[in-house]
Each structure stands twice: as structure tokens, then as C-alpha cells.
């Protein structure tokens, strides 16, 4: 996570185009993937494993969206588009959870 913090810090608005932390993000993605592979083989209780792995996947996905898909550098309002999709996903998850619990 410290690499992520550094990467966020490194991208000031001024040097934006010159110094986008593409390689740093790549290294973080590769390391987190290795962590994921070791987490699943640890044999932790199922729920804990699920929680850790979903958090790690969310970290990876956020990095790709923010830096590789340039959402960090777009006008703020562009982020509303994927967020609208995610809002409907939240409704779906809530409905499915209700179905399963029923």
C-alpha cells in the first residue's frame, strides 16, 4: 500500500503528462497478484479469505481505473458514468442477497 501512496503523491498536476506512474502501478499490480495467490493457499477461514481477496481485487481494479484508464486525470464528472453503473450493481447485489437469504 505504501507504493500506492507514493504513486498518488508523485503525480502533481504540473508534471502530469511527463511523470505518470505507469510502471509503479504495474509493480503494485504484480505484487498484489502474488499476495492474492499466497492468501488463498494460507488456508484461512473461508469468510476471512473472501474478505481479504475482494479487498485486494478492489485495490487492483481501482489502480487500473485511476491510472491506466486515466480517470484521475479526467474532469471529475466523468467518474459519475461508471459510478452510475456501480449504483445499479449495488441494487442487483442487494436483490440477490435478499433472494439467497430467503
Amino acid at each position: 500500500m505504501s507504493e500506492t501512496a507514493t504513486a498518488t503523491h508523485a503525480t502533481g498536476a504540473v508534471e502530469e503528462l511527463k511523470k505518470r506512474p505507469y510502471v509503479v502501478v504495474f509493480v503494485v499490480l504484480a505484487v498484489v497478484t502474488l499476495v492474492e495467490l499466497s492468501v488463498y493457499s494460507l488456508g484461512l477461514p473461508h469468510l476471512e479469505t473472501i474478505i481479504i481477496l475482494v479487498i485486494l481485487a478492489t485495490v487492483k481494479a481501482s489502480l487500473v481505473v485511476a491510472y491506466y484508464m486515466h480517470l484521475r486525470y479526467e474532469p471529475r464528472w466523468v467518474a459519475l458514468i461508471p459510478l452510475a453503473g456501480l449504483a445499479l450493481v449495488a441494487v442487483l447485489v442487494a436483490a440477490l442477497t435478499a433472494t439467497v437469504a430467503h
Partner: protein
Amino acid sequence: MAHPESVGEGEEEHHGSPWPVIIAVGMGVAYVGIVSGSIPLLLAGVVIFAGGIGGWIHQDLQRPSSPFYGLAAAVESRLPRVSARKLGMWLMLATEIMFFSAIIGASWTLRLRTATVGLPTFQGPWATPNQILNVPLTGLNTFILICSSLTMVEALAAIERGDQTKLRLFLLATLLLGITFLSIQAFEYQHLFFGEGLTFTHAPAGSGVNPLYGPTFYAQTGVHGSHVTAGVLAMAYVTRKAFKGGFTKENHEAVELAGLYWHFVDVVWIFLFTIVYLI
């Protein structure tokens, strides 16, 4: 060539392309074919669709890529503008988020329901990681997809600097990495389906695994694989255009848009790998 003052003219030409309409007609005919169960209608639709795509690509390869702001360019606005094409790509990706959520959500619901309620015809637990699937091999494939995301974003960075050689090299690398991903997935499918006996209706004999495990596995990874295939085709087109010198430091929007789609498919895989293989 694209001088700034000729951009408006180019936009007019883009506006006049008949090919998107032909593509839409093809999709409509194919859809009617699917709904009515008519194979000839479906095939006719696919042919019109493919012809439309081919015509559009042929037309597009003739001219350089440029951003397009449409009518919004004439309107005063406090919001910073975004190219209409980029906006369209993000809107499509929003629908893709919903599409993949539906597939993953349905699979996850089946998994939870059979574990708790236990429908009589679909007895048995879900397979544990590594029981049927080859997690290290797919871990390697995940790494390949991450590498392809890096080469893709480096290709965009290269053309933003006006570096044609690196643009071509990185696009070619992305294309090859995408093809490698698909090849490994094809090998995996072949091994699972014919070797292990994980089919659309049955789990491997004697494993005791729930028969719904196979179809949900193939549905989730197959839908993703088809998206990677579309991405590889898009990458082939962008790479060809790059080798024809179709992108400049100022005009290279197609590289960025193909990249957006490519990274999105990577994001989907990040979640699929976790949900299907590791949990």
C-alpha cells in the same frame, strides 16, 4: 493530413459515415433471427454486421484519428469538455459493468443457494480452488493481462510524446500478449472440457462437485474471453493503423479508446480471477 483548422471539416465527414447505421441494421436483423429462431436471418444479420464493420474500418484507416466534440463544442458550459467518443466509450463501459455483474451475480447466487438450500437435482458442494482449476496457470495468465495493460498505456504515452516507433512496438506487444492470454485460456478449456470432464452439464466424474459449477465457470470466463477476443480484434485494427502512420502526437484518440476498453477487460478479469479461481 490533420491541420487544426481542417478538424471541423473532418468532423463533418465522420458525421456522414453510413457504416454505423449498416452495423446497427445487421445487429437488428441478427437479433430478430435469434428471437425468432431463424438461422438464415441470424446469418444474414451477422454478414451485414461484419460487412459494416469492415466498411467502417476501411473508411477509418484512410484518415487520421481526431477527437470529436460534436454539437457540445458550440455550447457554453462550466463543465470541462470530454470528447464525444470518449464519453460514448465510458457509457458503453458502464453498461458492461452491469452486464458482467449480472453474469457474476447469477453464478454467485446459484453457488450460495445450492450450498444452503440444496436443490435436489443440483446436489454437491462447489469445487475448492485448485481442485479442478489450475490456479498457478491462470495466475500466470493474470500476470500476462497485467503486462498487456502496461504495454497498452505505454503505447498511448508514446504517441502523446509523438514517438511512432514505440507506439508501434507497444501496440504490437499488447496484441501479442492478448493473443497469448486467449491461447492459454483455449488450452485450459480444452484440458478442462475433454481432459477433466468439466462440461456444461456435469462436474468431473467422482469429484462430487455440484453440476452447476461447470456452466457457471464457462459462462463467466467465456463471456470475458469473448471480450478479450473483441479487444484483440480492436488492437489488431489500431496496430495496423499505427503502422500506416494514422496517429499523430495531436490526433490519436483511437489508441486511447481501444486502451480504455482493454483496461476495462483487465479490470473485469481482476474480479473474475478472484471470484472464480481463488474463492
